[in-house]
């Protein structure tokens, strides 16, 4: 087991736009090294915006962020992003005419000047349970699930210690979602990463994360462990989200017992 991933601390992070819209409103939170944190909220709650301030895809209007105690704006943002694994929403890959799966996986290595990443690509594809022969294919020849696995392999290529995921399973069917979620949690544990995942699906958050942050209108309104949430803690907003899968489960149970 590798040493745990870095801790991340956000302090008073705010993102407001010229029109007066406030996407993230004075968020302060500390994320322990090695933890798997889910950011849950409805669309427009500011969860994606908050995630993107960590790798500086979005610059906050106010507040500061540190990774392992070091402010993220001391080094240039391209370096920072290459150190942080990032799995994008939906597509996740470059649909470029000349970029194969292997080239997609190796893009981070290429940016760092690595000339011959072939062996590393094979290793990464193995890590996400893809057969080696997908390396030569084009991204559009893969299924949605395979594509997102390639996205994870690409994010892990530069051996980041921190992994950010923005709705990584958004476009996948439920079976694939479940498989991939399990695979990512296993990777997180095996590699000892710090993982922050944005999702709108509370059930997914409860099943995968160690800690669930609920966002509403740019603020964190709940911060609790899955077990605590299921026990009814975490406040009204969180409980409203937990109620949905709980209710579904009840109805399924009722169906099963034939009532």
């Amino acid at each position, binding site marked *: 087991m590798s040493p745990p991933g870095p801790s991340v601390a956000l302090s008073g992070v705010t993102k407001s736009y010229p029109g007066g819209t406030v996407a993230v409103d004075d968020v302060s939170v500390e994320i322990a090294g090695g933890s798997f944190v889910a950011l849950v909220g409805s669309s427009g709650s500011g969860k994606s915006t908050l995630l993107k301030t960590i*790798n500086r895809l979005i610059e906050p209007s106010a507040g500061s962020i540190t990774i392992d105690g070091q402010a993220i704006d001391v080094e240039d943002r391209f370096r920072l992003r290459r150190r942080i694994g*990032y799995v994008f929403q939906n597509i996740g890959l470059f649909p470029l005419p000349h970029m194969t799966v292997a080239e997609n996986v190796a893009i981070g290595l290429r940016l760092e000047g690595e000339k011959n990443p072939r062996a590393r690509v094979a290793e990464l594809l193995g890590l996400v349970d893809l057969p080696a022969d997908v390396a030569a294919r084009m991204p559009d020849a893969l299924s949605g699930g395979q594509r997102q696995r390639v996205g994870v392999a690409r994010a892990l290529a530069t051996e980041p210690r921190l992994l950010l995921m923005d709705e990584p399973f958004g476009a996948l069917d439920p079976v694939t979602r479940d498989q991939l979620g399990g695979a990512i949690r296993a990777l997180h544990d095996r590699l000892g990463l710090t993982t922050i995942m944005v999702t709108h699906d509370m059930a997914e958050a409860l099943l995968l994360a160690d800690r669930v942050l609920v966002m509403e209108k740019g603020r964190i309104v709940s911060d609790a462990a899955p077990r605590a949430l299921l026990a009814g803690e975490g406040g009204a907003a969180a409980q409203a989200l937990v109620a949905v899968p709980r209710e579904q489960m009840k109805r399924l149970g009722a169906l099963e017992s034939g009532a």
Partner: protein
Amino acid sequence: MTDFLDALTRVPDLLAQHLLLAMSALVLGIILSLPLAVWSARVPSVGRIVLGFASLIQTIPSLALLALFYPILLSLSTLVGGGIPALGFLPSLLALTLYALLPILRNGVTGLAGIDPAVIEAADGVGMTAWQKLRLVEAPLVAPVLMAGIRTAAVWTIGAATLSTTVGQPSLGDMIFAGLQTQNWALVLAGCTAAAGLALAVDALLGVIERGIARRKRLGAWIAFGLLALGVMVALLPMLPARQETVTIGAKGFSEQYILARMIGHRLEAAGYRVRYKEGLGSGVMFAALTSSDVDVAVDYTGTIWTNEMKRTDTPPRDAMLAAIRSWQEKQGLNLLGRMGFENAYAFAMRGDRAKALGIASLDDLVAKAPDLQFGADLEFLERPEWKAVRAAYPIRFGSAHAYNPTFMYRALESGQADVISAFSSDGRIAADRLTVLNDPRGAIPNYDAILIIAPHYAKDAQMIAALKPLIGRVPVEAMREANYMVDRDVGKVSPDAAARWLEKRVGL
């Protein structure tokens, strides 16, 4: 058919020049457009200005755009103390380059704007710098759209390059303009076919490159690119040997000028000079080209210089006018070698039967009848000071006035579409068509002796003066008319070059 095959022999040389001009403009256009397209896509306000400017240029007719560069370059050259050629390759290149900008820019900007923002965010997310993003993500995604724009630009440029003839840059347009002028349809057809063939061939090769880029068939793209490069190389070949100095002979856009230019050319070639022709030039353009040595030798007319260049409105006797012009030109370093021996004055001509029926013999008679008559003028005449001078002396108001290419002007007179035309006194068609030339009892039209002028660069070149001196006073108006008619007539016409040979024999050179 043999006419057409004859005409085709002129194609290779002009095709090479045409290809070089169009490709240079295209390459320069690409070099300018690409950074502009990126800048425009990044900064929307820049994009609006750049695309607006490029669209504005497209609304200027290509012929006008070419013509505009002449005064611009001329004044620029004066500003920096000379040295910038205002005719020929440079103005053509600049005008065509501007023309090539729009399709490349527009497709580049549209292509960049059309890239899925998620892809750009992905590029940012993996830590690409702006340059890496452009090179690794945006360029490959935009390439097919951009190539389509480059193809459009190539076809436009090759088409518009035919017009560079008018500013003295040899191109396939030389054949089209000369053929139109002398009604040599085989020449026009050969020129058009060659220009269209060139455009199709370049478009097809660029199409192969485009598909190669889109479908990752790099070999095909490289082969097509190689063929294009080879074509340009072959076109460049004639320029390789150390070029001996070439004398440029200018000609305005009518048969007499084409014939005399060839006659001068034959003399100079016999004296060991290399010559080339800049044909189809406008009056003002040709004179300015002479003073700036863009054209080295040309035949002009005393009246044209007197009214157009010296801005004089009086009409002194022949010898006094020539002496005044000579001393005026000497100040500009030009050498007025002398009169050719014939006059080509503006003359008002009517069909003989019609003039008789209406009882018109002079411009005075015309005054009363003009409101019921249609006037057909050559392309310049209605703007010329001579027309002003005539109207000042005779209050003529025509029912309508239309400008024609000289050849079509005679057709209009013949068919009755025009009743009176602005003819030239040395024109062979006056005698052949039995036209009546109206008298000028008030002496409003100045004298138009053909004169041979040498540009400052060769003004004191004894060898050239010796080669051209025998032409002075040598060409009587009857001989000139006959030679002109050989080129202008509908049946059994000959090329200006052949007419020049005939004229040389006729006057004993």
